[in-house]
């Protein structure tokens, strides 16, 4: 009896003791363990800001790209009681079969490629060989190293070839399963709840189809990640740009700015310029999961992601479309190589449209680039569609540069409003070494002389209207015969720079170049030669060494249109948040006011008005009903390898014509300009023939359709 009672007491004590151990001594430990199973912190993706045109039409947005991944901890474990069944491998094989890795060689290749990247070349080979699969190796040339081959020989660069497993032939399903198993074992050593990607860039419709099977494949995750979709593709490629992985050489810089090296960032266009603003910051949430690993509820505070800012552009989709189409047809018609057209509000620098052609479909950069036909095509195109010629191409501005020279001449007092210069035919600059031999002299003609026309005595307004070259030769470089003193190299360079040439305009796009404003010093350093009067003559009509980007020519035009204020061109109008609230509003940026006496710009403007509206103007075809347009044509001769004629040691053709770029700049309405446009067609022939129709179409659209009077 006593023994029985004692037994009861002992048993009770044991139970209480065990309870104490479980609850009190190891309680915290178990708590952590069970929370670890139950609670999981997930990243909440922050979408990137989208891009709208000035009317709120969406131009760039996000779309999902799908990846298939496996979560190690959700895979079935190999059961010891069934040693002949590989539960984990079977499940992996089921998932791989679902995505057709067993039947589609392309998918098998892609899975192997991803595993190769995940495992590295050693483990990749090891995973296959340990499972009894044969691995072929290929030799690749390695890094070059300076190696001293023999003591008496200098160090020579030697490449260090190494072998890598050949991943160019599709692997059978069991081999792929082995690779994935290997990758999963690695992941288990770190965090078993982190998914291992096995296939990416899955098209939406396929991903949706696969997702129906996820209910009985608990380890499979179909993860959507945002990629960019450019709704109007080619039409806005140079403006919007594209995104891609952080370039290796910029990795440090991005890391310092708080970027994760797996992130995609803007690599060109506005995507690059506004990368920091458009990028969102991910948030975090803790979720409770049931025993099947499904999210049951969210625990505690969700750290909301910070959404990226949206961009609202100054560009109007309707105008951009017309600009794109009109330029395209001009290029096709002239069989020209490329061209640019840009429109800007001359009163504030807002870019209303910007087109560089040929363009490209920037959506191809959102996809995987290897085996990407679209990308290969862009890469192989000799016309370099990726280059934004509006800001990255530099060309002689031709007669459009007469806007600068006439302003400079009036401002510097080289000519007055009524000063006339005589055009009586070609003029000659004598050779300084043979001053008496006219056959050695340099001949300068005006475009009209080819047609047997001389303009006689003309003033600055008429010179602009007629685009007479003799007037500008003499204004730019002086004329020894009449003892006329011109502006000279330094003054021309000074005024060119005042108008914005020689330096990037500061537009909110990457890759803008400054182009060249030649000076005597530059020529000396570059060619070890002196600046000649002939150089000044050429520069005065926008030829010779003088180069400009189409955007610089537009800024120049806008400055004339508004009476002398240089504005920094801006594509972005506003930054807004997801609710559409303005975060940063548009503020015009004045670069400088030109130091002009009153009335100077009026004369330049008058000259451009007459070019369009006087009976003998050079741009009369750009007139449009009801709106007073002012403009200036340009036909900039050039010589390059393709046009070189060895017989004439120049690019002259049989009729002694050089190839030329077509330019036309215009603004309207004349009295209170709202829009300034530049059109440039490389190798486009005469400005009046090729570039005017494009500009005219743009102005008509602007005044008749977008802002009807």
């Amino acid at each position, binding site marked *: 009896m006593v023994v029985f009672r004692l037994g009861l007491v002992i048993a009770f004590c044991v139970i209480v003791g065990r309870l104490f151990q479980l609850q009190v001594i190891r309680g915290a430990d178990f708590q952590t363990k069970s929370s670890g199973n139950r609670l999981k912190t997930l990243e909440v993706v922050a979408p990137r800001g989208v891009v709208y045109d000035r009317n709120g039409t969406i131009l760039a947005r996000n779309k999902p790209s799908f990846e298939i991944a496996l979560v190690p901890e959700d895979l079935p474990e190999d059961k010891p009681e069934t040693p002949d069944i590989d539960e984990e491998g079977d499940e992996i094989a089921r998932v791989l079969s679902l995505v057709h890795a067993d039947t589609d060689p392309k998918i098998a290749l892609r899975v192997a490629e991803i595993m190769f990247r995940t495992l590295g070349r050693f483990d990749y080979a090891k995973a296959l060989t340990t499972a009894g699969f044969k691995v072929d190796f290929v030799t690749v040339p390695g890094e070059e190293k300076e190696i001293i081959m023999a003591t008496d020989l200098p160090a020579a660069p030697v490449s260090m070839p190494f072998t890598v497993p050949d991943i160019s032939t599709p692997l059978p399903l069991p081999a792929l399963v082995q690779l994935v198993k290997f990758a999963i074992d690695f992941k288990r050593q770190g965090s078993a709840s982190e998914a291992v990607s096995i296939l990416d860039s899955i098209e939406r419709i396929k991903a949706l*189809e696969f997702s129906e099977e996820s209910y009985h494949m608990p380890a499979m995750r179909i993860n959507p990640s945002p990629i960019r*979709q450019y709704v109007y593709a080619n039409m806005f490629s140079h403006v919007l740009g594209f995104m891609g992985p952080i370039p290796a050489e910029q990795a440090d810089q991005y890391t310092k700015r708080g970027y994760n090296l797996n992130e995609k960032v803007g690599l060109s266009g506005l995507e690059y310029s506004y990368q920091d603003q458009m990028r969102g910051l991910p948030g975090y949430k803790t979720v409770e999961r049931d025993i099947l690993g499904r999210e049951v509820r969210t625990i505690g505070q969700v750290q909301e992601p910070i959404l990226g800012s949206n961009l609202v552009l100054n560009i109007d989709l309707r105008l951009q479309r017309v600009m794109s189409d009109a330029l395209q047809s001009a290029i096709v018609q002239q069989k020209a190589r490329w061209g640019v057209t840009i429109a800007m509000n001359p009163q504030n620098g807002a870019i209303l449209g910007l087109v560089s052609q040929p363009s490209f479909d920037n959506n191809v950069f959102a996809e995987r680039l290897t085996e990407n036909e679209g990308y290969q095509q862009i890469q192989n195109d000799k016309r370099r569609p990726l280059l934004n010629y509006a800001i990255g191409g530099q060309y002689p501005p031709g007669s459009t540069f007469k806007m600068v020279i006439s302003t400079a001449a009036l401002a510097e007092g080289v000519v007055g409003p009524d000063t006339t210069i005589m055009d009586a035919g070609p003029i000659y600059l004598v050779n300084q070494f043979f001053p008496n031999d006219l056959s050695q002299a340099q001949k300068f003609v005006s475009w009209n002389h080819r047609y047997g026309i001389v303009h006689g005595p003309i003033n600055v307004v008429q010179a602009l209207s007629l685009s007479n070259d003799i007037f500008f030769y003499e204004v730019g470089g002086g004329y020894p015969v009449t003892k006329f003193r011109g502006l000279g190299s330094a003054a021309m360079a000074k005024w060119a720079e005042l108008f914005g040439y020689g330096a990037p305009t500061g537009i909110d796009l990457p890759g803008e170049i400054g182009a060249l404003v030649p000076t005597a010093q530059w020529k000396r350093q570059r060619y070890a030669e002196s600046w000649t009067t002939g150089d000044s003559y050429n520069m005065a009509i926008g030829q010779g060494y003088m180069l400009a980007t189409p955007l610089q020519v537009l800024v120049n035009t806008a400055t004339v249109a508004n009476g002398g204020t240089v504005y920094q061109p801006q594509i972005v109008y506003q930054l807004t948040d997801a609710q559409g609230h303005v975060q940063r509003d548009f503020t015009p940026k004045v670069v400088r006011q030109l130091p002009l006496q009153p009335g100077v710009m009026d004369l330049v403007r008058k000259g451009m008005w007459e070019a369009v509206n006087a009976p003998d103007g050079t741009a009369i075809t750009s007139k449009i009903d009801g709106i007073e347009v002012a403009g200036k044509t340009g036909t900039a001769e050039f010589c390059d390898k393709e046009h070189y004629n060895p017989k004439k040691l120049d690019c002259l053709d049989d009729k002694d014509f050089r190839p030329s770029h077509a330019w036309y700049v215009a603004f309207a309405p004349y009295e209170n300009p709202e829009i300034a446009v530049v059109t440039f067609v490389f190798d486009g022939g005469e400005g009046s023939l090729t570039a005017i129709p494009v500009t005219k179409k743009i102005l008509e659209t602007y005044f008749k359709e977008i802002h009807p009077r």
Partner: protein
Amino acid sequence: MRNLEKRPRRVDDLGIRIVILALAALLLMALQLTGHLRPLQSAITLLTSPAQLSATGITENITNVIDYFAELRNLRQRNAELEQLNSSLLAEKLSLREVEHENELLREFFKFAKNRPGLELRGAQLIGLAIGDESTNFLRRIIIDLGQIHGVKVGMPVITDQGLVGRISEVNDSISKVLLLTDATSAVNAVLQKSRLNGVVRGTASGDLIMDFIDQGVKFSVGEAVLTSGLGGRFPKGLPIGEVIEIRRRDIDFSQQAVVRPTVDFKRLELVAVVTNFNPVEEVPELLVINPQTSTITATNTISVTDPSLNPGQVTATHVITNVDPLDLAAPLTTPVESAP
């Protein structure tokens, strides 16, 4: 007996009396058998007959009383029996009403099936809610009374005439689990009927039914019907899923979402049908317009209820539903009859 105990027992006393009495009895019996006692009997009878008569009346009354009580016991029993019968008939009636209701449901099914000739359907009863493996409050799985022996396989769609319920996620010999549309692991390809936009209808942890991955830049409206798209061939095309009740659209997100109210009332699931086979490329009218004239019913279903206590006693309730094809009627309709007493 207590008194006797107090007296000393005398064996001869009692034994002798018994022997004497026994011998006297034997003698009297022998006399009666030989007929020597008859005159005596007659004389006694003559003397005692009046008294006997009245005595008989008394005993008869007594017997009657006793009989009465016996009868009462029987009646009670009978009453209980009748009550039992009554309640069994009531149950019968209820069960018949149930059958009728079920037939009502089936009729709807027929109409539905008529419009979907490409579907091979097999009717099933909801027999339980699989809440054992749930830690949530939301009903996500149900159990039905069809299993492997009925040809049910994992992945088969489960529907009602109202629309899609889910699909078979687990099969045992004679029962199966159905994963409902609203489960967080469920994903079904769907299309918006009017705008023709596609996406995936999935359950969420919060219990909402969501149509996800609808392309950006396209518009759809509240009230649009959501149907199965048949993409991937796992579900028949054009089965109703629900109706859009809310649009979740933000320019910055990579796709649009629609909150969907399911057409099936998951709280009141009774009869479902397992789609055992279907033609994945079948083009069907997606809007199920049921024309009453076309729904001629051709199946017969007879339910006999027999009460053995009633003779000739066969109460027969006959429910005639015309139309058999293609629904297998046997399974759903025999079940309640078997459960009747």
